[in-house]
């Protein structure tokens, strides 16, 4: 098989459209309407509580970091602030982008804009890229949010734990967006009516970073960047650690989220930072269910899903060997066993993607 072309203007994307793989109908576990309606109900209370806790902790940690600046005692406070800035902002961006975190729309929008700035994503562009990610999850040439491509680029992946490739990509893109609106690739998924907004957002971001730079020059200190900008680097590791587990090492070019997404049980702190996106099969199958209801959704449909990984470490133990195998065999992926209570994968439908490819269950990964 030819090497994958992940470009949104490339031949794989064209082929996905021609074969009906793009914008296809995806598998859903049957859930009674009354149960689903209950799970989809919106509420402001959980997200208000979590947002007060998040921003309160950020203010406290930053204040301590500034107060202790110049001593080693500031380090743990900056590390904690960084994770909340550079990682929790990813999940807030995500959930508020869906509009499901809060019941009240302006609250979703406010937290979405703040989080987008912190995670260095143009809030106008990325709203649309994520819609495409849900339409064509891990469809090569269609999904603009494929975190680990095949063969995996390990250097880039390791760099992402420090936000390096993303930051390197962000600033020139921000300037370009500010000067001329979306790039040609971005215009494939951002509707023309939103192009002006993409440019306005980029101008605002540029102004904030310019003001931060001016403050740093004025103070002759990097302290302003410790508060704005740099935490996207020194606090990115947690959202990358959890984010790569969402789809890493699993199938692509399929239309069943049980094949291309992963649910992982996590500790309460990681779940707070990640806002329950560890229930990732559930989230993709039913994106209207708010983060606070995902544990209940998991209980409702787990009979139809592969067994979740028991911890972050267990999930990495499943994913990492698969990624290493993909260096040599691009077609390799982990195919998890379904419980006897589940509806089977549609092998006939996925034959083009899964047919004769070397796949494995987690406990039977071939030796390298």
């Amino acid at each position, binding site marked *: 098989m030819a090497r994958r072309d992940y470009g949104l203007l490339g031949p794989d994307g064209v082929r996905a459209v021609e074969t009906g793989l793009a914008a296809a109908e995806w598998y859903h576990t049957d859930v009674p309407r009354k149960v689903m309606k209950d799970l989809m109900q919106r509420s402001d209370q959980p997200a208000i509580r979590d947002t007060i806790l998040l921003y309160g902790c950020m203010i406290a940690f930053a204040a301590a970091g500034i107060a202790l600046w110049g001593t080693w005692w500031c380090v743990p406070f900056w590390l904690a602030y960084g994770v909340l800035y550079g990682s929790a902002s990813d999940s807030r961006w995500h959930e508020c982008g869906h*509009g499901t975190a809060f019941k009240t729309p302006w609250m979703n929008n406010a937290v979405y804009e703040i989080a987008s700035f912190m995670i260095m994503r143009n809030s106008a562009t990325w709203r649309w890229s994520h819609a495409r990610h849900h*339409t064509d999850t891990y469809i090569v040439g269609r999904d603009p949010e494929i975190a680990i491509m095949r063969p995996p680029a390990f250097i880039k992946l390791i760099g992402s734990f420090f936000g390096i490739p993303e930051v390197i990509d962000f600033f020139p893109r921000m300037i370009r967006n500010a000067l001329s609106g979306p790039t040609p690739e971005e215009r494939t998924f951002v509707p023309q009516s939103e192009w002006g907004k993409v440019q306005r957002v980029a101008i605002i971001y540029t102004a904030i970073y310019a003001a931060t730079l001016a403050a740093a020059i004025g103070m002759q200190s990097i302290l302003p960047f410790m508060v704005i900008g740099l935490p996207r680097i020194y606090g990115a590791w947690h959202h990358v650690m959890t984010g790569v587990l969402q789809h890493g090492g699993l199938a692509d070019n399929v239309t069943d989220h049980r094949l291309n997404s992963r649910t992982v049980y996590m500790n309460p702190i990681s779940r707070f930072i990640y806002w329950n996106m560890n229930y990732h099969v559930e989230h993709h199958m039913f994106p209207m269910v708010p983060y606070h209801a995902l544990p209940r959704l998991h209980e409702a449909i787990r009979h139809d899903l592969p067994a979740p990984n028991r911890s972050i470490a267990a999930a990495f133990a499943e994913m990492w060997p698969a990624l290493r195998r993909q260096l040599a065999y691009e077609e390799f992926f982990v195919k998890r066993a379904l419980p006897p209570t589940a509806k089977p994968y549609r092998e006939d439908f996925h034959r083009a993607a899964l047919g004769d490819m070397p796949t494995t269950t987690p406990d039977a990964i071939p030796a390298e």
Partner: protein
Amino acid sequence: MMPQWIRACATDDIDQEDLIRFDHGGATFAIYHSPDGAFFATAGLCTHENVHLCDGLVMGHLIECPKHNGQFDYRTGEAKRAPVCVNLRTYPVRVDGSDVYIELP
């Protein structure tokens, strides 16, 4: 061809603040029962991508698409939240006794 009134469902087929799918003549529609007891009808597929709205969530007078969380006012069909940009087609509805009819072209 003259518009026709077609029976879509019974009034108690739809809970208040909910919707059901109704297929007729090769097309698909969504029939809504609003919180204040009125009935409405729209095209059954989201204008963003061809997703059935019947699996979505009715909140007041809004229907939210189950795939991308775009929202429409189902009374007017107006697109209210990204990623939907194109309004939803609406159809006249009348209630006759315990039956809900929609007018189709």
